[in-house]
């Protein structure tokens, strides 16, 4: 009789453990999804800011016409990108160009004295930061999830319910990480 109770107790404890681990995995996976959605929100914000930016700097930055044009094109590409890998590529291009523009601004003292532009520049800096922080947060969440999924004993539950590894958001092109070069021509 006692043996039966002990077995029953063990079974109940096991069930609780399985439920707990399953829920932990689900919670972590939702956080990964959430973080991914955050990246999208910030990218959209950048798309919304760009026309305003171009409008403000157009009159000042006469020598950067080409950069401005390529920003407009890159924005259009990024917005119309269909697949995720296309999108990552187009947004990477845009990040690169925006960095270049921010450096180029240094050569235009008039622009830097313009109150509207300063406010806009703060928004831009912040949006670029938000994009990279949302990417960082996504990678953090992926790391937590994958760690949990791969370590004992949760890996058994993950195997039973077919949880898959999530992939990190890597910047593919090594050159993108480098400081953008500017040529004043």
């Amino acid at each position, binding site marked *: 009789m006692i043996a039966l109770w002990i077995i029953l107790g063990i079974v109940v404890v096991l069930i609780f453990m399985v439920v707990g681990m399953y829920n932990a995995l689900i919670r972590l996976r939702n956080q990964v999804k*959430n973080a991914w959605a955050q990246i999208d929100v910030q990218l959209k914000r950048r798309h919304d800011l760009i026309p305003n930016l171009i409008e403000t700097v157009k009159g000042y930055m006469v020598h950067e016409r080409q950069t401005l044009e390529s920003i407009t094109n890159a924005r259009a590409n990024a917005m119309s990108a269909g697949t995720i890998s296309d999108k990552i590529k187009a947004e990477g291009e845009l990040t690169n160009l925006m960095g270049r523009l921010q450096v180029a601004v240094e050569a235009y003292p008039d622009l830097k004295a313009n109150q509207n532009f300063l406010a806009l520049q*703060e928004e831009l*800096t*912040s949006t670029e*930061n938000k994009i990279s922080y*949302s990417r*960082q947060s996504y990678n953090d969440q992926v790391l937590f999830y994958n760690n949990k999924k791969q370590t004992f004993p949760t890996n058994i539950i993950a195997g039973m319910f077919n949880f898959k590894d999530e992939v990190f958001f890597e910047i593919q092109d090594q050159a993108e990480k480098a*400081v953008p070069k500017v040529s004043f021509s």
Partner: protein
Amino acid sequence: MWEIIKANQRKSFFLFTLMGIVLIGLGFVIGWGYDPQGGGAFIGIIVALLIFGIMSLVAVKSGAKIMLSASNAKEVTPDVHPQLFNVVEEMRIAAGMTKMPKVYIINTDAPNAFAAGMSPDNAVVAVTAGLLARMNRDELQGVIAHEMSHVVNRDIRFMTLAGVMMGAIVIISEVFLRSLFLGAGRGRKGGGQGQIIIMIIALALAILAPIMAQLLYFAISRKREYLADASAVRLTRYPEGLASALEKIASNTAEMPMANKVTAPMYICNPLKKKGMKMSDLSSTHPPISERIRILRAMAGGAGLANYQKAFSSVTGKNKTIIPGAELNNQENPEFRETAGMAAFADSKTTARTSHDIMMKVDNYTFINCDCGMKLKVPADFTGKTIDCPRCGVKHEIQ
């Protein structure tokens, strides 16, 4: 972050239990001293726990509100200081918080900041006008990251409860000591030698307990500061920002008049610096700033928690664990990011003016830039429709 929070809770739980034992012991001995035959000891424990329970209920429910109103902080909208809101949101994203914290500005020139809120969903970040005037973008980000780390690591919740427990211990001891001196007239008949001895023990405990509780509280607080620094760097990936922010805050000698020893752990730097006092002594709520700066600057190779731990050991020479071990194994070495390169105002005159302007904005002043270069500052309760520029006499309309 999850592992670190759990490990944190385990460690804090130990210190917290120690404080709890002090509290219960105090109630037990005092109750016993008054009524050794009956259930005095039992009643004493109940009363001690009741006092703690009621106080912590109040603190948990309205602790943030009390702290904000005590420090004279005002909730602001993004237009008062857009950069502050941007930085807060960046850190919200980096920390993976779902809700945007409320942002408050404190109208004082002393640079400091604190966080409040029991959970990440009802977080509050408060900074002083003096801080905003002095920091550049990277430094502000470092400060905000430190404060939000306190919320994410559940430091605020824990420090509030620990602070309340310390408060309860202090109150009980105080009441007992006073009643002992004032209530001498209340005859205690039948109390033999045993009761006198118990009363002496109670007396000793009532004197020692508050000191012990405070030392424990400060010890917990110091550890939390290192951890918040480490988490801040992990979020910003830029240790120099926080390091130079701390440097700027340290070089300012103004005290925050509205802070006290219990609320001090919530601030980024000890708001109560006394000159000539050694910052590293046992009754300090914060580790010495110079040490915090040196650790941050010694971080090499990455912005992860493990990197901070390594820097901590090499700078202090101590083998203490600041970051709970579980987290160390699964951290990569995140790369540093580059500086945002936005300069702050260097000279003290501009700083003072900027800080003053921010305070006026918080108080809903309207700013009008006149073409002659004059900046008009109109108070919110100004009733006229137009105002003349005192320098050139041009009429300005007030929206």
